[in-house]
């Protein structure tokens, strides 16, 4: 029976938090460390539930893992650039969380670079909004910090 196993019977079923089932090949699944260890721990025929990942993010991760196997270095770079460009800010943040949870190594390298480039010259207000951070400084505390590093505020992009 094992010899006859086709790719589909080998495939791994992933159930996202919004109830969509994805069937992925072992090659794709093994590039997500969290899933790799779940497959090892359980019977691979079982459907693996992903309580922190929604269908959109999982589909993007699969799209990336399938797409980045381009033949040339420049083609991979082009694919990666387009892949990141197509994401909205909200999608970027959500995908980063999903990638962190699933431990997709290559995206764990690429995505922080993309986010760092994006926020490098942005305002503090933009960052708070982007990361969903509540400002817990009192106005006078914040003014004091800003004053101490006033010279670092030149050349900040408008959001």
């Amino acid at each position, binding site marked *: 029976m094992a010899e006859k196993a086709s790719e589909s019977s080998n495939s791994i079923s992933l159930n996202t938090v919004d109830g969509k089932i994805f069937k992925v090949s072992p090659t794709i699944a093994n590039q997500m460390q969290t899933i790799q260890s779940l497959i090892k721990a359980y019977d691979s025929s079982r459907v693996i539930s992903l309580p922190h990942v929604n269908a959109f993010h999982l589909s993007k991760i699969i799209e990336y893992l399938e797409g980045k196997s381009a033949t040339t270095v420049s083609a991979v770079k082009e694919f990666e650039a387009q892949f990141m460009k197509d994401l909205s800010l909200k999608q970027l*943040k959500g995908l*980063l969380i999903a990638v962190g949870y699933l431990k997709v190594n290559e995206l764990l390298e690429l995505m*922080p670079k993309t986010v*760092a480039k994006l926020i490098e*010259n942005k305002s*503090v207000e933009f960052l*708070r909004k982007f*990361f969903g951070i509540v400002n817990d400084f009192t106005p006078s505390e914040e003014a004091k910090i800003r004053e101490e*590093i006033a010279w670092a505020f030149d050349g900040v992009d408008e959001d």
Partner: protein
Amino acid sequence: MNMQNMMDLPEHLIVSILTLLPVKSLLHFKSVSKYWFSLISDPNFATWHFENDAAQSNRLLYFLPPFIYDSQARCIHLDSSLHTHSDHAVINANFLRPTYSNIKGSCRGFLLILHHDSYLYLWNPSTGVYTQLSLFPINSSNVYAFNPNSFYGFGYDASRDEYLVVVLTSCDPEDGLKTYQFVEDFETNTGFFSLKTNEWNNIEDTHLPPYINAFGGVGKLLNDTIHWLVLRRDVPKNIILAFDLMKKSFSEVPFPAEDFNIKPGCCDLCVLGGLLSLCVKGNNVIDIWVMKEYNVLSSWTKSIVVSVDELPIKSHYFYPVCSTKNGDIVGINGGKWLMKCNAKGQVIEHYMYCADPHGCEAGFYRESLFPLAVNIGQA
């Protein structure tokens, strides 16, 4: 799914994003929240940031000629194009009175500055943190400190988490200052300043031969060791003198060959891509030698040859300052031109950063968030 209900980014992802940012952005982002303030201020974070090669930012800092402007330094980002003017920032150096300063060392984002008000300064130009040090006691008269034959070095001993400034002076205090060139029997006095104890110490149990700072270079830091290119007067021959910051002891590092012929003004020591390197001007070419395995004589390899024809000022030598993130080499030509060449020795670009005919005092540093432990000031 409602994005508002998504859990927050875990700390390791926030750290992996923030360690990729330039220091300026990080200082600015300290005011995002209390958590971000404490994260960015954490010394461990400073280490992760400094050690992240993907984020390294190499800069050349130079002083405009004194008495013309207020104390201002400028810096050029060396990893992007030298012509990217937005990267040519003005840096506030108000703590330095506007007079001559010499840059005598560079380590972990700090520059060692010998200022003509008779103090040494350690300064992190990226954060503005600085501290003032007294001169080495034997140097405390201005004449000795600024004697061309005083060598300086600046480094960090990771095992003790301690910054050290090292000074060697080869002058005969009895016999004036100018005669050392002709005297064979004089001693080299050495001392180090520890930022931890905040005082100068003599380096004990060393009877050093007479070393002369014939090449005028500043100490180059590699593997917890500071290196100088020096003339040993008693032999006499040129050697690479090394000071081990942990053992507090001196040694000599071999040249590529016994008969290696170098002359002052045509040779300099540098650290390129984490390797000790020698840059030597020959006939129409500049050879860059690298010691692929530290302290192994046979590992010296001539790695790059730059044609003198490609230099903006052909009559002057080219001093390499650093290698960039992409592996290019940046150097100074004639005290006012920066040039960048690739690993094949081809000149990619050059840029005149200083219009003064005498050139500008300049030094290289790699940006860091590191604080200093004692006497912290803010520019």
